[in-house]
């Protein structure tokens, strides 16, 4: 628990909220401080103004009748108590002449000649004094009169200063409270945040430990954490799919390679046992070499497929005219079709621009054309077409009048090593269409299989239409 708490204090969320709580407290402290400065200052300014007025009165008395008049003025006001002001007139010898203060404050006056000091109230009872203390705060001026007399005029500001200091205490307390509340709120909020993050981390740790099942919880509010969970889950889905495919591929490789390897082994075995017959031995060896080549071909196909699917192949994508690709392949395959007794036609639209890798696109089309030639019986037709579709895509399509692929199998044949039953007798690795699919993916394209133009009633199949669609290259170079 202790360690967990310490760990919590280290979290970014907590530090952020702590910082914002501190900033909030500072802001309220500054605001209240401003209020304090304004009101406290006003209280003292008002006292100072009143003192100045009284000093003017005394000054007028002095002008009228000198020290005596001043002395009388003070006596009149202070005898019997109840004076509003504090007075003290001091003889040059230091003796007090009149006033309700007993001695002059021993405080250095400030720039404006003002002093603030604590005095002992001379007589109790003439003022309401709640706390009963006799030490009170006063504020006033000391005026040097001619011929060495000194006059103090002041006001009792005890109430006011006490109010001001209470205000200051209140402000400090409020700021401290704001800080405490901010931190508490921060802990609360960040705890929630950290708990949600913790759940995602827990999922990550379980996945790391090898369990691909768990998914990060989502609250579907679309907030940042929800989005993180969603992306995290999508990533896990992809990882799981890749792992599954890898496992499946591994199994398929083992399964599909076992057949040719066994065949090869038998041939070599036979060649060893064959007595003397040099020619048949040579034949067996030649066939074994051909088997090896076939196996190597499968390995190479697996390798390029893996690199394409992993997105590792840095295909050299360029702007190119798909018509060049289509016409080169048409020219390559036309004679092959004719030799197989197939009518070949090419319909190629020119002037389109595609972002692609010539080698890869050619290979994809060659794989499709290979299949068309392989499966379409003599007398059929193969058509290669390049056109811009209604949706503004660039489509390569190859149609044949062969047996076609049943609807239910069309999605399956692009998976690795999937070979339909009726194709097992033909040479092939079961990787050709997977490679086409991977090449389409690399180009942000789609690969689809559909019904061909064949006539089922003729005893041929429905035929097959293989379509590779790519987005057009954006205008400009």
């Amino acid at each position, binding site marked *: 628990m202790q360690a967990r708490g310490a760990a919590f204090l280290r979290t970014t969320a907590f530090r952020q909220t702590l910082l914002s709580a501190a900033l909030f407290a500072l802001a309220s402290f500054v605001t209240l401080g401003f209020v304090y400065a304004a009101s406290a200052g006003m209280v003292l300014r008002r006292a100072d103004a009143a003192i100045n007025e009284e000093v003017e009165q005394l000054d007028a008395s002095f002008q009228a009748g000198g020290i005596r008049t001043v002395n009388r003025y003070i006596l009149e006001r202070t005898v019997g108590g109840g004076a509003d002001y504090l007075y003290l007139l001091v003889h040059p010898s230091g003796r007090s002449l009149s006033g309700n203060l007993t001695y002059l404050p021993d405080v250095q006056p400030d720039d404006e000649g003002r002093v603030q000091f604590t005095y002992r109230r001379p007589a109790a009872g003439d003022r309401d004094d709640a706390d009963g203390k006799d030490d009170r705060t006063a504020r006033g001026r000391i005026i040097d009169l001619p011929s060495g007399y000194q006059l103090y005029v002041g006001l009792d500001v005890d109430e006011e200063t006490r109010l001001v200091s209470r205000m200051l205490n209140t402000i400090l307390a409020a700021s401290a409270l704001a800080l405490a509340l901010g931190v508490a709120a921060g802990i609360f909020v960040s705890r929630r945040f950290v708990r949600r993050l913790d759940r995602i981390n827990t999922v990550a740790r379980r996945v790391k430990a090898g369990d691909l099942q768990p998914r990060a919880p989502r609250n579907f509010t679309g907030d940042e954490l929800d989005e993180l969970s969603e992306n995290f889950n999508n990533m896990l889905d992809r990882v799981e799919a890749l792992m599954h495919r890898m496992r499946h591929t591994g199994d398929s490789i083992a399964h599909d390679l076992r057949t040719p390897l066994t065949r090869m082994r038998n041939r070599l075995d036979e060649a060893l046992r064959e007595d003397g017959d040099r020619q048949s031995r040579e034949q067996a060896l*030649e066939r074994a*070499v051909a088997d090896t*080549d076939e196996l*190597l*071909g499968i390995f*190479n196909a697996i*390798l*390029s497929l893996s*690199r394409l699917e992993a997105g590792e*192949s*840095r*295909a*050299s994508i360029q702007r190119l005219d798909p018509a060049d690709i289509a016409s*080169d392949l048409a*020219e*390559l*395959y036309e*004679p*092959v079709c004719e*030799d197989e007794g197939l009518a070949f036609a090419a319909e190629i639209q020119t002037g389109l621009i595609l972002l692609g*890798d010539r*080698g*890869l696109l*050619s*290979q994809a089309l*060659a*794989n499709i054309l*290979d299949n068309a*030639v*392989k499966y379409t019986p003599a007398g059929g037709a193969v058509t290669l077409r390049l056109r811009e579709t209604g949706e503004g895509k660039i489509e390569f399509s190859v149609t044949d009048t062969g047996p076609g692929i049943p609807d239910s199998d069309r999605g399956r044949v692009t998976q690795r090593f999937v070979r339909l039953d009726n194709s097992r007798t033909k*040479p*092939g690795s079961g990787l*050709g269409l997977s490679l086409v699919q991977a090449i389409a993916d690399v180009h942000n394209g789609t690969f689809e299989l559909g019904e061909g133009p064949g006539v089922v009633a003729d005893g041929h199949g429905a035929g097959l239409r293989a379509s590779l669609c790519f987005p057009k290259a954006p205008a400009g170079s």
Partner: protein
Amino acid sequence: MRILIVEDDREAASYIRKGLRESGHVADHAGDGEEGLEMARAAEYDVLVVDRMMPRMDGLSMVEALRADDDRTPVLILSALGEVDDRVEGLKAGGDDYLVKPYAFAELLARVEALARRRDPDTVRTKLVVGDLEMDLLARTVVREGEEILLQPREFRLLEFLMKHSGQVVTRTMLLEKVWDYHFDPQTNVIDVHISRLRSKIDKPFPRSLLHTVRGAGYRLQA
């Protein structure tokens, strides 16, 4: 022909060496890039066969070092890396041809011999002649026994390649790469079909055939 094999896999090297010797060539072997560079500098070779991945100095660095010395000996790079970009990298480093492992020996031999031929000062040849078959590279015409033969553009390029390598075995993969610029092997026998088309034009009407099939390897044009 004198050939240097630079290959760290001793078994593979001795397999190539034996094959080349059986075909009448002299073959030396270097076990890594540094040794290969030393030997290539010390003696005149007609062709270098260089493995790409080797200890101490890899094949591409070795070829680059040679080319920096202005040594133009043709180089065939062998590599287990067969993607287009790997190939481009190999050719950029100064290799003249690129062969992906695993390969058939016949393929290697055909390429080595083709590379040696390229060294001949044939840069400005405008006319190719094999027996009574003549090709004018400027006028783009082909004549046999005084009779003009009409060829499609691709057939013309196919024949041109065969004539430039007359007397040598040319493999199907070589033709796909050099004539069509495709670096994949189609499942169907596309090359055979094109060769048989060409044959029907340049050989069939004449008593003696020039275009021969070499079993298990490819084709050879020979008078």
